[in-house]
């Protein structure tokens, strides 16, 4: 009798769990399905061009102080974010779709924490008076690239699969170059803007060109 009672209670519990799990799986799949469908090539190319342009400006005008470096690159990041939003909005208007759609919202939510953390470090150590030690400026490009890679990886869950890989490329690139400079060539002397241009210009241009060729139909739309 008691065994029968346990069996019934267990079945009820199992059935509820099963149905709840099913609903949860369906919800997850539906969220994954509603992927971000905006063409990324123009955004990547814009980010790449801005990255290279900022590096050239930094090198030409020798913006090597903490404040100048921070202002230049945080300003560039802000312009890229605004530009990316405008490009996205333009595409949404063209497709007669809402700009702030659920997939766009989810992508923004995934990008926000790592990007905020990177920006916060930049503001504290490069812009605030008496922020961090001067040498910390050398670490910022690596930290920014790592945080950016993490942001892309997080957003990649709701975007085409390549974005997740692009995030990994950033994480790998930042880790690899950091290891190279700390272990192999610690005495290499060069402007930090070269590194920033290498991190935030070149990969964006390369990925943008790749996307431009592969998502041709979407870019033309």
């Amino acid at each position, binding site marked *: 009798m008691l065994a029968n009672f346990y069996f019934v209670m267990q079945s009820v*519990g199992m*059935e509820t769990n099963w*149905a709840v799990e099913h*609903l949860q799986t369906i919800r997850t*799949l*539906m969220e994954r399905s509603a992927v971000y469908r905006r063409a990324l090539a123009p955004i990547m190319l814009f980010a790449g061009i801005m990255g290279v342009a900022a590096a050239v400006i930094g090198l030409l005008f020798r913006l090597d102080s903490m404040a100048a470096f921070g202002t230049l690159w945080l300003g560039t990041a802000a312009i890229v974010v605004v530009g990316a939003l405008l490009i996205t909005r333009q595409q949404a208007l063209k497709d007669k779709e809402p700009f702030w759609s659920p997939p766009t919202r989810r992508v923004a939510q995934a990008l926000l924490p790592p990007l905020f953390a990177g920006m916060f470090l930049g503001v504290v150590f490069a812009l605030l008076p008496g922020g961090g030690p001067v040498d910390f400026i050398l670490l910022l490009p690596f930290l920014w690239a790592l945080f950016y890679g993490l942001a892309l990886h997080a957003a990649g869950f709701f975007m085409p699969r390549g974005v997740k890989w692009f995030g990994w490329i950033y994480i790998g690139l930042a880790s690899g170059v950091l290891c190279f400079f700390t272990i192999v060539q610690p005495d290499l002397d060069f402007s930090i803007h070269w590194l920033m241009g290498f991190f935030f210009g070149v990969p964006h241009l390369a990925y943008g060109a790749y996307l431009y060729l592969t998502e041709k139909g979407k870019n033309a739309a």
Partner: protein
Amino acid sequence: MNPEPFLQLNRVIHEKGRLAIMSMLAASPELSFTELRDALTMTDGNLTTHIRALQQEGYISVTKSYRNNRPLTTCSLTPAGRKAFAEYINLLEQIVRQNKGK
């Protein structure tokens, strides 16, 4: 416990692979074969079998076209498929509600 909602569950949709396909298609106007295969990590053969089963039931429509000179197969839910999926979800919610109330 009332077994009625459980017995009413659509057996075609209830299968794990087909339910995943229906869920994906319910949230997008259309998805390509490649997108479905990559998102669900299914083999080509497995996905084809499930798509065929759902197509036979009239739940999804399959369109074959060309993009950039390459064949493109896209799938989308039919109105019947959307209705069947909504009914399936309703039944699941009913099961959960029914058991929560106990």
